[in-house]
């Protein structure tokens, strides 16, 4: 080994006195360093595994309770459109037909299937096997095609929600009859219908096409989906431009003084304010002062905009800060004005980060129910909202409303609505990733 210069300074630590001792010191410490690295890696992997486990538990509990909502029990009945019932005095006008007693047709079909049932109480139980909506279905069929009058046809009609729950195993025969929603003989009839093939679990179209309803078998998420869509549309259209413009101004054009510092501190604080406060603000200002309609997606969107803006501004500022100054200098050196430099060069490069921030904000807005409850989107909305001003509800609010209802069928609907909410979220995030990748440029 070459002669290493020996340091005359005896106060230096041993390792710095010559090369050989330094090398030895490094070698000694290596084992502990690698052990610490392995430990750290282990902690990281454990954290990830724990997260995955919780995620799996969450998904499993939701899906296991909710997947059955995608099928619904229908019973196929042979219906005779009896003119004697529907048009007793001969008038076949549409008003008269609309007001006829279609429930009687359903009852007649059921009696035909089970001719042995005669006692009034038993008959009432028999009629209870089919949903009350069956009569309206038949009414609609006649309204669509009055020529059906006098004919017989086989129609698939919704069963009562309790029969559906029994088929899905949520109502057990082992429960005692007093607490069970279906009596023993109803269970027997239901079994008979299923084994004969007259009753089947088919795709639950209702869930995806209808709005809320008191009858569980008729309740659907479409109203809530439309409400959420309109609300988020308003939120996106307002919060993205305002947020991006505010961030750009604060980052590129505003002078750095006390005032802008104060603004920055306030924006950071607003991002942490509980969302229900924004709901109170919306109630006080948008509904009381401006007189906007309650429960409307417009007001919901305005409230969620206020909530999302701080998130978007903070993320956008970070994205703008990350654009290298060399690009700005190059643009300015070419004779671009400040606005041209920002619009042509800085914003396109900052766009992926801004989109990410927007999606994070929107995802939070998607799942918020507290502020929407405050502005009145808690009402029982049956009609599908068609504009920004119609009363509406939102998916998370719908979940909250359904979770409170005692009927068993609403348990699977609550979970089903959560699944739809999560699907919405995944689609939104997928879109964000797509947009980000498309706009991402490497410099």
């Amino acid at each position, binding site marked *: 080994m070459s002669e290493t210069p020996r340091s005359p300074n005896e106060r230096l630590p041993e390792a710095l006195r010559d090369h050989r001792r330094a090398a030895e010191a490094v070698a000694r410490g290596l084992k502990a360093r690698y052990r610490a690295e392995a430990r750290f890696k282990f902690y990281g992997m454990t954290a990830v595994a724990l997260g995955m486990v919780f995620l799996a538990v969450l998904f499993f509990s939701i899906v296991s309770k909710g997947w059955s909502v995608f099928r619904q029990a229908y019973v196929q009945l042979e219906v005779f459109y009896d003119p004697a019932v529907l048009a007793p005095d001969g008038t076949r006008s549409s008003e008269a037909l609309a007001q006829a007693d279609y429930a009687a047709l359903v009852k007649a079909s059921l009696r035909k299937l089970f001719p042995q049932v005669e006692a009034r109480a038993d008959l009432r139980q028999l009629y209870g096997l089919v949903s009350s909506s069956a009569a309206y279905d038949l009414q609609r069929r006649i309204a669509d095609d009055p020529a059906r009058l006098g004919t017989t046809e086989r129609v698939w009609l919704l069963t009562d929600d309790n029969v559906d729950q029994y088929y899905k195993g949520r109502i057990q025969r082992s429960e005692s009859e007093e607490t069970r929603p279906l009596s023993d003989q109803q269970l027997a009839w239901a079994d008979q219908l299923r084994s004969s093939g007259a009753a089947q679990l088919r795709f639950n179209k209702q869930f995806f096409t209808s709005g809320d309803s008191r009858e569980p078998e008729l309740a659907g998420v479409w109203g809530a989906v439309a409400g959420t869509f309109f609300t988020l549309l308003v939120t996106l259209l307002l919060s993205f431009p305002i947020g991006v413009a505010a961030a750009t101004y604060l980052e590129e054009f505003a002078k750095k003084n006390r005032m802008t510092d104060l603004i920055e501190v306030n924006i950071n604080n607003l991002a942490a304010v509980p969302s229900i406060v924004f709901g109170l603000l919306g109630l006080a200002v948008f509904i009381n002062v401006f007189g906007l309609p309650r429960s409307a997606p417009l007001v919901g969107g305005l409230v969620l905009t206020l909530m999302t803006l701080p998130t978007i501004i903070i993320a956008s500022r970070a994205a703008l800060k990350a654009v290298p100054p*060399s690009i700005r200098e*190059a643009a300015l*050196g070419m*004779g671009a004005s400040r606005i041209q430099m920002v619009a042509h060069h800085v914003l396109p490069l900052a766009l992926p980060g801004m989109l990410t921030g927007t999606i994070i904000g929107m995802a939070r807005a998607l799942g918020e129910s507290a502020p929407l409850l405050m502005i009145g989107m808690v009402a029982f909305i049956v009609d599908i909202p068609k504009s920004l001003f119609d009363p509406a509800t939102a998916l998370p609010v719908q979940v909250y409303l359904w979770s409170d209802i005692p009927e068993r069928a609403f348990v699977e609907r609550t979970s089903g609505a959560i699944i739809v909410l999560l699907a919405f979220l995944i689609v939104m995030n997928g879109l964000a990733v797509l947009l980000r990748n498309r706009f991402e440029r490497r410099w």
Partner: protein
Amino acid sequence: MSNAVAEERTDRAAPAPDTEAGVNVKPSHRQPGALDLTPQSGAATVGTVTVDNPIMSAREVNVYYGDKHAIKNVSLDIGRNQVIAMIGPSGCGKSTFLRCLNRMNDTIESARVTGVITMDGRDIYDRRQDVVQLRARVGMVFQKPNPFPKSIYENVAYGPRIHGLASDRAELDEIVQTSLHRAGLWDEVKDRLSHSGTSLSGGQQQRLCIARTIAVNPEVILMDEPCSALDPIATARIEDLIDELRASYAIGIVTHSMQQAARVSQRTAYFHLGDLIEVGETDRIFTNPRHKLTEDYITGRFG
């Protein structure tokens, strides 16, 4: 031998009575006809700072970064169709001075510029002067190549487009092609104009930056150490390019390399700690420097 050097050192180290900052200000060191500048701080400039019919002239320019006095009372002319090299040790203010000429120091909040810099007789720091217009007439090439992360075509076309120099697409194509030709890059990129400007090599990127600077047809091109991030071959190509360009533009180049200054420029200005120490014909500066500090720098005693 080392004794001789030591003697030389002690010889010169003895400060003369009217010395400031260890620099000799005796009148005998000034060339007759030089601009007589009364120094507020530091020494007077040796050599001729003026030229006939300059495109830009700076008079008594001071630049402050907060409290730091970065440029001290500098006066200098930029001549037409010639290259002036600004040399000096690190931190001497040559880049700062260069950036004053196209007001790039405006982007730095703490920077304050005093003095008069004129272009064609008009003060560029006047309130009525549009800085966007100035930068279209005075272009800049930076130390680290910084093409826009757009296509090569878009890089060159950006300037003409925002300044409205082309009336239609055909004219724009023409400008792009001409600029790339003059920058010596056309043959290498003509098949891939739509590729990203950042996909080129370092030397090509710098030539692209030069192409986009000349695309707006400026009168002055400022180059801040344009070759310091490049290998010798790329450097040589760019130096050839600078030589060709001086037929059409006035060029000011800041460089760390004295050899480069000697090869490329007609005039050289030596900066030291914010002062302009000496200016003159390049040949004379490098063979017969008049000021002690210039001589020390050139012979490698420091810097």
